[in-house]
């Protein structure tokens, strides 16, 4: 089929499917399967009860053994690499061209070694497992499932594009009435996104275990003061 015919037929087919109501079966969300490679852009919005919303847009690349997240505004990012049974995490500071590397044992100590499936799908399988599936179907040509429920005083509303194993929306309402929302803005097949991860291959990398020996390194002093966390990870949601 040449491309001009395909370009004409695909919207027509979509229109027919929508008009008739898409009765195709919706794939199950199987958080055991390896998710397909994708690139995506999200927006995280935080609405405190007292007002004063803030939002951040961030990018996400997922391949079989490598996950990258990037916050262009903050010029920071996270790289996760799975190598055999080991997991490596690098927190990237693009403006400084430096990174902090966390090895498997560091992550264990920090209790910051998430399941690969959670990292790569941005979904917590344990959480999905306890929420109730409220609806499923097809939207804009892709299958989705929506899960809702409350866990430990937090109300969740999560919609997942099941073919790509990627959330299109995560809403979290805390007991403090703060609402955090993660929305999928755009998604692409891997390698087809208009933006690519910043190349960090020649960055000056510092081991997390060596932070304590860099007490006078201005970069280390600054990021500890800024990031605050015992592990300086970015959070998608």
């Amino acid at each position, binding site marked *: 089929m040449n491309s001009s015919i395909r370009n004409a037929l695909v919207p027509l087919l979509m229109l027919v499917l929508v008009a008739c109501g898409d009765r195709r079966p919706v794939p199950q969300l199987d958080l055991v399967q390896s998710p397909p490679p994708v690139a995506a852009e999200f927006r995280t919005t935080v609405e405190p009860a007292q007002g004063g919303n803030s939002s951040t847009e961030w990018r996400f690349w997922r391949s079989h053994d490598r996950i990258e997240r990037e916050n262009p505004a903050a010029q920071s990012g996270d790289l996760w690499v799975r190598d055999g*049974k080991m997991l490596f995490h690098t927190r990237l500071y693009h403006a400084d061209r430096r990174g902090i*590397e966390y090895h*498997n*044992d560091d992550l264990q100590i920090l209790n910051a070694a998430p399941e690969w499936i959670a990292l790569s799908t941005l979904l917590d399988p344990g959480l999905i497992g306890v929420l109730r599936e409220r609806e499923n179907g097809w939207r804009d040509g892709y299958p989705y499932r929506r899960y809702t429920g409350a866990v430990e005083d937090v109300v969740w509303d999560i919609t997942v594009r099941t073919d790509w194993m990627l959330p299109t929306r995560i809403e979290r309402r805390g007991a403090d009435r703060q609402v955090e929302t993660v929305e999928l803005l755009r998604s692409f097949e891997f390698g087809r996104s208009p933006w690519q991860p910043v190349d960090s291959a020649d960055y000056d990398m510092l081991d997390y275990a060596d932070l*304590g*020996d860099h007490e006078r390194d201005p970069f280390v002093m600054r990021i*500890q003061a800024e990031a605050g966390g015992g592990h300086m990870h970015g959070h998608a949601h």
Partner: protein
Amino acid sequence: MQLNSRISLVVTASLTVLGGASAPAHADSASAMTVPTSGAEWFSAGRAAIEANRLVNRELNTRRARNVILFVGDGMGVSTVTAARILDGQQRGIDGEWNRLSFEKFSDLALSVTASANQQTSDSAPTATAMVAGIKTNDGAISVDQSITRKEFCAEVTRAKSVRTLLERAEERGMSTGVVTTARITHATPAVNYAHVSNRDWEANNTIDSDLGATVLPVGCTKVKDIAAQLVDFKVGNGLEVALGGGRPYFEPNTKADPEYPTRLGRRTDGRDLTAEWAAKPGAAYVWNKAQFDAVDLNRTRHLLGLFEPSHVKYEADRANDTAGEPSLAEMTRKSIQLLKKNPKGFYLMVEGGRIDHAHHAGNAYRALTDTIAMAEAVKVAREMTDDEDTLIIVTADHSHTLSIAGYPSRGNPILGKADTGLGLLGVSPVAIDSLGLPYTTLGYLNGPGGWTGNGSRRELNPATELYTAEIPFTGKRPDLTNVDTTNPNYLQESAIPTVGAETHSGEDVAIYANGPKSYLVRGTLEQNAIYHVMARALGL
């Protein structure tokens, strides 16, 4: 057991050790593990220990040492040794407070003042330089004196300010030499033996080039070599016989994939493959996993390089999970001594328990203590393989950490647990509570990440999931540990002051334990650089 028979056991055990010139002050036979249970027994045990010391001091080992082994527990302050001793005993089902680690049975002991030339509380570079070169120097300095600037790029200036190390002097005499560590072999403490550089961070050439940037070196200056290159290019004597630790990428070009983790590349930007260069030397072998390490033919191998991880070697608690397998510190020590002992002129060996420090920085007492116990096992192996008559063994730390042992827990209370009151009935002792009505752990840090997220809020370990909770807004209260299993290996002990990236070193004195020829010179309160002079005197250098 009847009182008299208990006294008899303690006294017999103490007398057993009186025969050796370097008899331990604390009896180490199995029967001596019987803890006194009465005033009379404590009195007898105390008197027996002093009797043992009296005899030791009457027969000073004034011989010249053939071999010297320096063990450095990085960050192994006195509180770490005490807590490790107790944990080791409790893990083996004996009285932890009565237990002694292998090196605590050495004949001589002193305190070491760890302040460096420009620091009240020091980092590992000047403290390790003090121990192996006999001088005090500035922060970050690797066997160069305090007149050098932190980033001196000029090799000629660096050479002029370099200080000769015990390893170099041993090589000049024709002795064999080795360095073993659980950190990167290019890390500060091992590096001071064989390298001279103003900045401890210059472990591979890329960091020198990055710091140098567009700066043009003065006329007459060539660029200083990185630490890894200095190890492989080491020209004194016939070069190091043994170098075992971690840090493969610092030796390999940035075009070469790591053999254990192929997604990772080398760090070198000068194209040099230092592991291949090492292996190409006559009689040299390079290994990077446990199977290769075990298969080393000591009859054919004269120079052994082992790099078992891209960065630091695994914590002892995590070693079993390594992808390719890696030897323990005790196994590396054993193999090293087997190789070094082939030289009739003797050997010098430094062994570092390098990750005690890292676990403390992370605020995780469990791994700091289990790595201390692993180093004590390595000391035991070293002593078993050598003769007290001709081998001086020194065990010390480069600096301390802020770990404290607090409250009034009962004898036998789990050292990783919550402090108890000792006031209970029927063997159940209620936990102690603080002024807020909350329980607290025996071990804690003055500063560090434990319990803090860095913005005034805290995290708590959820005992059901063994995961940390989301941030809990700061309420002015400590975490409630009532339902928290603080003996979990991943538990981070609370810190009073949030330095959330890393807990810090501390500046109090550390202990020096010594056994063998000239060990009697280790006494009193010594400046840390005196350790070098004890070792040099023992070797007759």
